[in-house]
């Protein structure tokens, strides 16, 4: 699989999954694609369908209604797929620990490879996470 992963690292296509976030991480992800940060220089591109994706960017603390949908999205994705969790909500639960409608264990819904904490994380932190992922893929 080594050659495959090295090829994958040349151009990662990302699909954005929002699992009950506050929108902020999502906006910062879109910000990455716009002229100031411009991650397309690393070959990263946002795609409209999960079936084209190599990386899932997951945001938010999953609520009970969306958790099965996220699971289904993950199953639909072509493997190998890498999951990057953006924001404190996915890493911890932020301030939603006491809510009646959230899934307590997000790793039980989908396996997560990379965590980027922060509320919201700086775009630089997200770029670093993806660059690290590329580094791992390259061996």
């Amino acid at each position, binding site marked *: 699989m080594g050659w495959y992963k090295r090829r994958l690292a040349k151009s990662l296509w990302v699909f954005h999954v929002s699992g009950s976030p506050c929108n902020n991480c999502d906006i910062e992800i879109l910000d990455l694609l716009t002229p100031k940060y411009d991650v397309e220089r690393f070959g990263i591109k946002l795609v409209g369908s999960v079936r084209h994706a190599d990386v899932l960017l997951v945001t938010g603390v999953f609520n*009970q*209604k969306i*958790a*099965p949908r996220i699971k289904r999205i993950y199953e639909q994705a072509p493997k190998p797929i890498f999951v990057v969790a953006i924001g404190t909500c996915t890493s911890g639960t932020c301030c939603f620990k006491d809510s009646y*409608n959230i899934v307590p264990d997000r790793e039980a819904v989908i396996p997560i490879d990379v965590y980027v904490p922060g509320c919201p994380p700086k775009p630089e932190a997200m770029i670093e996470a993806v660059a690290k992922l590329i580094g791992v893929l390259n061996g």
Partner: protein
Amino acid sequence: MDEVQQFLELMGSKLTRVVQKPRRLYFYIPPEEVLTVADYLFNQLGCRLSTATAQETYDGIEIIYHFSLDRKGQYFCPRVLLNKEQPRVKSIVPIVQGAIWIEREIFDFWGVEFEGHPRMERLLALHHPENLDKPLRFGRQV
């Protein structure tokens, strides 16, 4: 004449426990008068329905309608007190179209049934995977 005075004179006999604060007017109305008061506030005075709040009190479930009179910055807040066991009240959707979601949300959270609502279904927990049989906020203690 100022709208609040006018309203109090016209509807005064129906209102109880009136609290008047600057730019805010809270009062209780009997549940059967909801349509009359909403019709006067929305159609005659030209108020906008901001939203409605439901809350649990010792006496029962209370719904507060927040009507905003935008040209004066004035809020009219009629409140109705409903039976805790079987909360039912007339829907104001025939008068205010914008109340569709607001009433569905109250039904979802507190189990209040609105008679005459075109689509009395859960709003946020529709097709919820847990198959909830109770309102979302029912019996939840902080």
